[in-house]
């Protein structure tokens, strides 16, 4: 898939995100917008995946979202890559929907393999799934995305220790380093300090990448993939800007979990070309 095509899809996904969050007047636009380019790069270019979804995912790469609150970007990406029809995005967070506030398997939404929302659990799940792949002699990779605030949860570091000790080298983790969490900047709330040094000290291969530029995201993911299967799990520290693509949502934690009103929606959509047709 060409870079220009991926950029077009990303614009539509951003429209979907702000429209979904506006439609139910709840949800998390900031992190979703910040990670849009990553999701589109992942599903458009990086993952070997099958939109004819199977829970076991044998013979394909797997992706897990640990910071489940950015569900809008994942749902839109899955829909735009053929897992289910885009019109279903209109049901987000509404009663009787398969698109729960946080991702879930209970309603059998194609593309989701584990519930997430309560933070800090995805790296453990991804590590287990990666070990199952090894037992099954399936040489595909397992990807997982976490938030940077999320890694304040202790379980993340249990999993970090485990994955290195057990040489789970078919695992590529990405942290969305946007420096923001609900109450403010991560450096003010609970300093993360030197993330690269932390993960290296735990025994991971660490790369750093830019997360709001399609070419650079793909470069980062390709580099991460090239480092896989060499005896260590791989950590991709990806710098993003929360709210990226909508000028008044950028550079602040304030749009972490707030929905735009009608006027703000119109202002946001004016900045995001409709490339694939709104749902």
């Amino acid at each position, binding site marked *: 898939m060409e870079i220009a095509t991926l950029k077009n899809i990303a614009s539509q996904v951003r429209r979907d995100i702000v429209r979904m969050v506006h439609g139910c007047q709840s949800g998390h636009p900031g992190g979703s917008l910040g990670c849009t380019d990553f999701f589109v790069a992942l599903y458009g270019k990086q993952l070997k995946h099958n939109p004819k979804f199977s829970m076991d*995912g044998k013979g394909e790469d797997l992706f897990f979202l640990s910071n489940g609150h950015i569900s809008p970007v994942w749902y839109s990406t899955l829909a735009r890559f053929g897992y289910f029809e885009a019109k279903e995005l209109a049901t987000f967070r509404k009663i009787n929907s398969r698109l729960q506030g946080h991702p879930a*398997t209970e309603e059998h939404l194609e593309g989701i393999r*584990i519930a997430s929302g*309560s933070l800090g659990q995805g790296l453990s799940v991804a590590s*287990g799934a990666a070990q*199952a792949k090894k037992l099954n002699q399936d040489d595909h990779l397992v990807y997982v995305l976490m938030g940077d605030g999320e890694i304040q949860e202790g*379980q993340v570091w249990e999993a970090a220790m485990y994955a290195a000790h057990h040489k789970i080298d078919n695992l590529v983790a990405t942290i969305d380093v946007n420096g923001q969490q609900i109450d403010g900047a991560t450096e003010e709330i609970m300093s993360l300090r030197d993330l690269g040094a932390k993960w290296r000290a735990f025994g991971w291969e660490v790369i750093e990448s830019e997360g709001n530029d399609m070419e650079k995201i793909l470069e980062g993911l390709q580099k991460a993939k090239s480092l896989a299967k060499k005896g260590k799990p791989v950590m991709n520290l990806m710098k993003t800007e929360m709210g990226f693509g909508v000028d008044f949502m950028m550079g602040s934690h304030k749009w972490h979990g707030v929905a735009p009103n009608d006027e703000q929606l119109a202002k946001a959509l004016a900045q995001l070309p409709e490339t694939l047709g709104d749902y």
Partner: protein
Amino acid sequence: MKSYPYTEKKDTRSGFGAGLVEVARQNPNVVALCADLTGSLKMDAFKKEFPERFFQVGIAEANMMGLAAGMTIGGKIPYTGTFANFSTGRVYDQIRQSIAYSGKNVKVCASHAGLTLGEDGATHQILEDLGMIRMLPHFTVINTCDYNQTKAATIAIADYPHPVYLRFGRPVLPVFTPADQKFEIGKAWHVNEGTDVTIVCTGHLVWEAIKAGEMLAQQGISADILDIHTIKPLDQTAILHSARKTRCVVTAEEHQINGGLGDAVAGLLARNLPTPVEMVAVQDSFGESGTPEQLMEKYGLTARHLIEKVLAVQKRK
């Protein structure tokens, strides 16, 4: 009263260890995870025979629950092993989100449950686990009574594609159920046919109920005894059938009076067949250090206590 002669005594956790090896030989998808308690959980034989299917997690139970959930994606059937306290209270949110809500085929296997853990004291003697896990949608909750039943249950749950909590313990107790039994999940075992009082028991209290039944028989009281090894889903038919016959019920479990088997049975009866109920259980307190026998006596979980409750409940008919 039917007699239950026995020739040996064993711990239920050893039944788990033996069952795990046997089911792993039958089913190549069975894998095991342990949080630094391989010896205590009797998982050494599995580790020796299937080293590539055994995962040492270290002292990190939250991670273990997530790993197990992940391993089901790809068709594995993970059995996690640690003490009951660290299998439930410590990791409740991980079990709730990554296993129960996600509908994952994980077998949470919990040893050293209840007071009979003994000298380690209340930090380790969890008495709330049945209640916590019973409240989670999709979970099946099993509490076995002897070595053979634990072994049979360990084997049976592999072919049952749902999350299971399997609770067993540390003390050495008579082996009184058949070695060749077929374990039927959700189906009560009718220990004794009786007419005067129903005793609904689980886990280590089943042997106490048998002793109580023998003593009651000498007093001319005929006890209908049901082993409810599967606390969820509850065998409603068996319990209601027995209560209809005897018109009074005593429950017995190594657990808090709140949230466990007694509450499950009382709720069932209140909704369907209001019947007097007395409960043998820990009375809303923590345990303490001591020998298992001393603790069961002090906290009221013996055959003698069961008999007291039987006499009391009969007066309420």
